[in-house]
């Protein structure tokens, strides 16, 4: 079985990339293949990369507070491209916003303060629901 493949990206204009880079490194160390698209990527670019890389899950990080409108746009782009890969969102997300994200179809929510191992476990579970033991 090939290793889990994850597309990570920072959509929107926010440049705080410490968190997503640390998560990318931790996921690699956990055996995943990580495709990090970088800053200010558009929802269409995320969908295109998810298709091209045949990714199992997508993770985005937004620390400007714009996570709700941005997650909506990314989900719409993934669906428009006919992709099933689940979307996870990290950022300065309040408990009510975490609920709102789940309601619109975000599969994983990682607010600031989530421990790194918990993010890694959560992302791997999204990528391989059948291998929850990972």
């Amino acid at each position, binding site marked *: 079985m090939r290793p889990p493949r994850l597309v990570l990206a920072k959509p929107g204009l926010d440049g705080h990339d410490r968190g997503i880079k640390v998560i990318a490194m931790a996921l690699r160390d956990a055996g995943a293949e990580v495709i990090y698209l970088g800053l200010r990527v558009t929802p269409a670019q995320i969908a295109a990369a998810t298709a091209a890389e045949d990714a199992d899950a997508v993770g985005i990080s937004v620390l*400007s507070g714009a996570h709700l409108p941005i997650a909506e746009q990314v989900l719409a782009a993934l669906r428009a491209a006919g992709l099933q890969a689940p979307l996870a969102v990290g950022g300065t997300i309040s408990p009510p916003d975490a609920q709102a994200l789940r309601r619109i179809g975000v599969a994983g929510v990682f607010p600031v303060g989530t421990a790194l191992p918990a993010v890694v476990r959560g992302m791997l579970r999204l990528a391989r629901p059948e291998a929850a033991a990972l």
Partner: protein
Amino acid sequence: MTTPPGGDQPAVTTDSGIPVAPVYTAADVADGPEALAKRLGRPGQPPFTRGPYASMYRGQLWTMRQFAGYGSAEETNARFRFLLEQGQTALSVAFDLPTQLGYDSGHEMARGEVGRVGVAIDTADDMADLFTGLPLYKLSVNFTINATAPVILATFLVAAERQGVQPDQLTGTLQNDILKEFLARKAYVFPPGPSMRLTADVVEYASGALPRFNPISVTGYHAREAGCTAVQELGLTMASAIAYCGELTGRGLAFDRFAPRLSFHFATTLDLFEEVAKLRAARRLWHRIATERFGATEPASARLRFFSGNSGTTMTAQQPLNNVIRSTIQCLGAVLGGAQSIHVMGYDEAFELPSEEAVTLSLRTQQVIALETGVTRTADPLGGSFFIEHLTDEIEARASDVMREIEDLGGAVSALEQGVPQRWITEAAYRAEQRLASGETPKVGVNVHVTEDDDRQAEFFQPDPGIEERQAERTRRRRAARDSSACSQALRRLEHDTAGGANVMPALVVAARAGATVGEMSDVFRHAFGEFREPSPW
């Protein structure tokens, strides 16, 4: 914890890895008391280790400057007035991301981001609204703006003009440090070369027109927040300062003409003594660079003044009230390090923009330290401590090594084009996170003394959902009302000066006065310079 005889305890070090002994004595201060006296000088005297001014806080307290901005110009104006009523002594503007990146509020790229992390400014009219009733002839204003710094400065000069304030009366600081955007903060727009030109255009222009204004704040803060150590922070900051000064002297500008108005910006985190030592070492290092490398003849050219921001990354979402204590210690560190201006982080920083309650408490933290603790009574109160002097020497030496590494890569611009310091920062951030996950670095409420029912009481900032449409509409209206031929003519002059290599500031001021938007002025630079895309970090 006791160390067993011959036991192999892990080395005790500062946060940046400098070994720390159980106790320090006179023998740990290199070369004896006379050499130390030379390394220190007196406060206000070269090499300024003990502070930039002779009387330090007895003469003048540091400037209490809470970073603020959200929503529209009116909302931010109200927050500014509130802070001034609470005893804040100067202003510091946070801009939203579209403004920082040169997009008007109606632009497709601005969707969802308008007014969110700062105030939305599209025109000089917005800037004038931001300062309604706030007298710019006496209020010092800090602007955290970089890629679009020349554009925002132009709108500010027009806003001041409308208050009848002359440019030579203006005080404050424009961050205008583009190199750290590529390194860490990541709000860059144009490639490094043209970005350096814009930064230098601002400094050159200010050296004539704005004699009381700091046109740049060379910043290590963001690299630190992105993960690097105190030593790397200092080395990277000085490497950037060298690059800017080289760019300016390369234009034929005399070092002493612009250097007295350079300012600096450092983080102050929780390793109290290392932070104080870093700030002292920064002053000594800058004195050496200014005199030895750039031949400073004016003492003020070699006298480092700095703003300190508390570290947001030390704040935790868990048990958020603990952040009040963290902020207090960091503010104290900045004061003991001799800061000219301080921002104290809100305890709700890990969640959102600070609430009114959090920002008031941050200001009160500064006021309590200033007025109740007595730490302001004498300059450099930790000077002469065996440990502090040893650490100051160590940090200066290690930061000099970092500077040499950058130099070997061809200087700050070349090093970041190769992605080298970015990798240092990312790797250090990963190691820090691993130490946190393993418990090696204790963090109260996170990996030690954790409470199970940690109900997060912080109040969440919710921007007004109508701001985006309202602000876009206001800008549309203002564009419709301006003299369009005067505005196009001003933008053509800006294109001409940009292409011809003239200083862009005079044309920007004319364009801002004619009602050109931040997006339109930034687009002139986008077309001329193109946009930068970061190379892959791996």
